């Protein structure tokens, strides 16, 4: 996540957020990157990860009912 290549950072984000609940520390890390990372590619992957997290949260919300 702190590699100097934007491609590697984006790839790491994708891999981490693919199919599981993220640990709080990584969520925090993502949030920091969203605020400061200069790369559009990285931001795009963060937005995509955020969508997946949001839909997982909704799914969880529904199954809890």
């Amino acid at each position, binding site marked *: 996540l702190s590699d100097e290549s934007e491609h590697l950072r984006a790839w790491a984000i994708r891999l981490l957020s693919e199919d599981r609940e993220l640990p709080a520390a990584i969520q925090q890390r993502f949030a920091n990157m*969203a605020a400061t990372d200069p790369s*559009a590619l990285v*931001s*795009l992957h963060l*937005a995509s990860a*955020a969508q997946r997290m*949001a*839909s997982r949260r909704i799914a969880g*919300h529904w199954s809890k009912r």
Partner: protein
Amino acid sequence: LSGRPDFADDQNIPLMTWYAAEPLVEQDQDRFVQLGGGSKIPIIRRHVARRVASIPGNISGIDQLVRVMRSVQTETHRSDLLSGLLTGLEGIRRFDLPPAWSETYAVLKESKEESVREQAQRLALIFEDPQAIQQLKQLAGDSALDKSVRHRAIKALAGSRIAGFDEQLIELAADEHVQMEALAGLAEYDHPATVKTVLQVYSSANATTRQAALQTLASRASWAKALMAALGSGEIARTEITAFTARQIHSLGDKQLSKDVERLWGPIRETPKDRARLIANYKPQLTATLIQSSNRENGRALFQKNCANCHRLFDAGTLIGPDLTGAQRTNVDYLLQNLLDPSASISKDYQMQIVATTNGRVVTGLLIEESDNAITIQTATEKVIVPRNEIEEQKISEVSMMPEGILQKMTHDEVRDLFAYLMGSEQVALP
């Protein structure tokens, strides 16, 4: 991400961020409004405001947005939030006044951006803000002001059908500077003095104002009956009735009125046999040689009067109906068929809707927008937004929005001039 101005113009990031943030509205609306209202990305601000406003009866969310609007940094910010709010509330005539509104409105109405002031005013009318209504009524009545300011005030008040404004409209109908707007505005109300007022000012009004007055009278069956009486007695000349007004009266659905208007104006819809005969009659007068020797400038003037209200040709006209520039204009048969029998083939986009409202008005025109709360009808003269809960009946007319009988009102020379203009390859000057 929503706080990053550097990606505001990116193709994907703004919308993807919005989709990720959207579910938050149900889990934590406060945070949603804070995040979205303060976002550095315009599209997110607009979407957040729209999403909050489109939840039925969401007074707490709207109140919070109104409060955020006061604290944001720029006028663009405010304008985005206002336009999102208005989109979300579209088709809703009234909404409870949010507690934070009056303090925010005091800021908004002093904005140096006209779009902010104008949108704030529209919102104020939805909230029925008494202070804003009072101010607008004053603008409408102040004869020392510029006409355009007064016109906007009248349109805004009548368009929102503010209670009690019809009394003032009746008075304003006597004021030549705002006469047309006042007469058009009266269509929104069912005021008992409307017919009398229209007839009083009719003969002294100019041509466009007279057409607006006729549209108003043709919008309700009871008024249309009075109009037919005035036509019968010669108080209003028959030639004043255009194809649109005739058909508007026809679509009110009153048998007696339909019969009367046919007697005065001619058939609203010819039989196929009559039409075939008409086409056969016109054809010999429209040979290539005859068309070549006719007056295209005069043709343009005829186009301007009869067609340009809905059609565009070359660089002039309005796009309510199809643009004619690319049509098969050089084909006489095609033109005759479409002018004499416009309803023979109508594309779905141009089917006319007839909408009767719960307050007794009948609106005819094209359906140009549909949302959960309202439909928007483009009539021959204006856009009318009808809230869904005010629709009493809605049907699709079997005839085209384009009226029949346009050529029949012209002389043979005029028909030739019009065809010469329609078939030409370039624009000409008006005579």
